[in-house]
């Protein structure tokens, strides 16, 4: 059971307005002013919105300064590797064919700005990709194709350029929910040894896939509760526990995972929430001690003791994030809502969240990556 922290709508609006005013002052002085090169110590945030990617420098850890905007078609998922940004374009057609696409951008090591390297098509029928992950060695990207019911593998060249689709794993499956008429791969991530973990919202399946010679083979399958719709996944810091957010039945579950053999061993815990929908998101603190989740009804905070169980702590109500991201220093949780990027400071000791602050105003943001 979560409790709202000391924050209310009025306070949120006040904070948001003042922060937005700062941003507005910057923008009134023109694009050039906001495009000033940031100091070398700056970190960068990349936010995918409906038709574009916004680049921000994060000054002093909490001030977001807009650096750049580049066109991009529905950049639904972002991943950074080796100073390259990879983007899954959630589109139903590319080059007149029914397929999505993936983009690669080079990240300027000083300015943080993006330069498009190339855009590569996914396989035929691989429409509406939902997630992507880059291999630990940076040599390939795996894409979860929600609409097309498949996983695609694309090679990555030395210079970060995307190659063609080298592997396709076509999925079948369905579930009892009305949104589960077919397979809908919705999440993909690599474990520390390079295996691929996936969640299929349409077939209620978790999978462990082994990339080999540019193709994917199934190492393990794990059926989850029928109709639950596993939507997003995270691994703890030790790769021993897999947390799964189920959008369709409003639950979170944890599974014991053996990265050595690539098997999901058993379900350990399921916690039920009161909200169901199509989206459920999570982010885990770098310490592995706290999980943040949202099923669209505020943010829940879960303490993870040594046994891996999820223990509810006070969260944040009143916001409906569609994406969560903990900064790599573990000091902030970033949340994308329908029209804003919110920042919540994380208490160093308790890892509880401070009140959200609106740090950027955006139209339909959907993905974020922080460098």
């Amino acid at each position, binding site marked *: 059971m979560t409790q709202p922290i000391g924050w209310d709508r009025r306070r949120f609006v006040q904070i948001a307005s003042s922060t937005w005013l700062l941003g507005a002052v910057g923008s009134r002085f023109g694009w050039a002013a906001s495009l000033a090169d940031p100091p070398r110590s700056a970190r960068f945030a990349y936010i995918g919105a409906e038709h574009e990617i916004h680049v921000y420098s994060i000054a002093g850890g909490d001030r977001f300064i807009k650096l750049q905007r580049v066109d991009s078609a529905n950049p639904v998922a972002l991943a950074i590797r080796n100073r390259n940004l990879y983007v899954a374009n959630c589109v139903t057609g590319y080059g*007149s064919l*029914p397929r999505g696409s993936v983009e690669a951008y080079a990240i300027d090591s000083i300015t943080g700005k993006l330069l498009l390297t190339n855009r590569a098509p996914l396989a*035929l*029928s691989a429409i509406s990709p939902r997630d992507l992950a880059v291999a630990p060695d940076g040599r390939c990207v795996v894409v979860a194709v929600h609409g*097309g*019911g498949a996983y695609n593998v694309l090679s990555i060249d030395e210079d970060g350029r995307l190659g*063609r*689709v080298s592997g396709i794993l*076509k999925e*079948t499956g369905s579930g009892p929910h009305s949104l589960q008429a077919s397979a809908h791969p919705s999440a993909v991530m690599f474990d520390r040894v390079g295996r691929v973990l996936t969640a299929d919202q349409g077939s209620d399946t978790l999978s462990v896939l082994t990339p080999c010679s540019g193709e994917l083979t199934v190492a393990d399958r794990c059926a989850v509760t029928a109709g639950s719709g596993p939507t997003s996944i995270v691994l703890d810091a030790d790769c021993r526990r897999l947390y799964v957010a189920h959008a369709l039945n409003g639950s979170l579950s944890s599974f014991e995972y053996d990265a050595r053999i690539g098997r999901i061993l058993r379900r350990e815990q399921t916690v039920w929430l009161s909200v169901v929908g199509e989206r459920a998101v999570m982010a885990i603190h770098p310490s592995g001690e706290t999980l943040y989740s949202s099923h669209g009804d505020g943010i829940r905070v879960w303490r993870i003791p040594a046994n891996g169980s999820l223990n509810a702590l006070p969260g944040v109500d009143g916001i409906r994030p569609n994406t969560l991201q903990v900064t790599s220093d573990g000091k902030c949780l970033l949340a994308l809502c329908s029209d804003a990027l919110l920042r919540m400071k994380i208490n160093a000791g308790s890892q509880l969240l401070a009140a959200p602050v609106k740090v950027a105003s955006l139209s339909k943001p959907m993905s974020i990556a922080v460098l």
Partner: protein
Amino acid sequence: MAILVTRDDVRFENLRRARNGRWPADPADGISRVALCLSPEDTEEALQRVINAGQRPTIRSGGHCYEDFYANNPKGTLIDMSMMDHVGDLPHDARYRVSAGATLAKAYQDLYKLYNLTLPGGTCGSVGAGGHITGGGYGFVSRLYGTTADWVTGVDILTVDSKGKVALRTCTAKQDGDLFRACRGAGGGNFGVIIDYIFDKLPPAPQEVMVSNMIFPWAEMTEEKFTKIVDAFGGYFAARGQDPDTWGLFAVIEANHRESGFVRVSAQFCNPDGTCKDTKVLDEFLALFDACKPSAVSPAPPVSRPAAGFGPHMMTRVPWAETGAAGGTRHGSTRAKYKSTCMKKNFTAREIRLFYKHLTRTMPGVDLSHTVVEVDSYGGAMNRKEMLEETVAFQRSSVMKLQFQTYWTDPAEDEAHLTWIREFYKELYSSPEVDAAHQGTPFPGESYEGCYINWCDQDMIEYAYWPELYYGPNYKFLQQVKKKYDPNNVFHHAMSIRA
């Protein structure tokens, strides 16, 4: 169990190739294995293995697909149906069956020899029944009897359910009637693997047909003469050719490019009773071209027994069993591009002028001698409006069907040939006959009735409304069928139904 031919098999290189040498466009797009199926059980088992392995199946019957629908399947499996070529009834079932792998030549021969029956179409003997019939299927006696799809009363088809389980269905008007209707006109590779077409009855094979060929050399051609030939042909089929007594006449203008040397008008005819006792209709048709003075007349090969009964026009008597078998190499190195149009009216003067312009256009260094627009007669029994509800072939008001074709062998000529055909087509349909929103295409309207899915043309998917060109008002219905019977979109290609 199906015979699995993988990359390390010496047969693979031959079996993987598509008939159209352009496909796959990139070797990396090609298949990794071919499953040669010998029975429905083989096919079911092979398909299930493909699904379980997370691969994509594509399907080949005769291999005539103009685009890359079966050839473009990176690391996937090609389900080859060519050895499942049964034609005839079964011990426990007196209905006629034509298996997906049967070529039209075999179907014509076997149905004739077994039952003195025929399929209404098509015109190329090496085409496989699997894709041909589900796309409609018309040919030499379709004006007399309708399309082959019109006669289908059942389809045995393997579908894949939402869980990935393969199952054999027999769909009929009463069982899975929506899928049955969709299989009659949607084209191949959409819903599953078709095993057999079932016919409660089939039309009788004509006893004989009259065949006539008129040659008009380009050396003697003028634009005025060309206009007369094309206008005479189109005018006939837009008017007189729709009278029932003419439905036994099937005719083609082979409007070859000037570099080929000639334009040909061919006709095959029998009366509705399947005889050629009275050739009045054919005479009437051939007389239209008298003024154009065909300078040479030759019978169409193969002809074994030219008949003596010539009337005022040259024609040749050919036994039914000797028609329809074109043969041809299966995996040719010939490269090709095609387009199609269904026409509801005779040609306009502008259209004929553009035909002449592009058929006489030269492109330096490019051989256009194997470039042609075939204008096929249409209509007759194919335009029976009651079939609109029974099939998804919506083109039931057309009088001619055009097939634009260009062939070459050197990949270096790809761009030139594609340019020729695309520019011709686009200019032809950028006209007052097409409304502003659909310029460049024969969008269904007063003059045109879209395109024919069996003569698929991937260029058309650049137009967001391409499904209307091929399926008219039936696309939403087809999307519903797709969702229901192939919810995971296991069967797909560039122009498959997109649910």
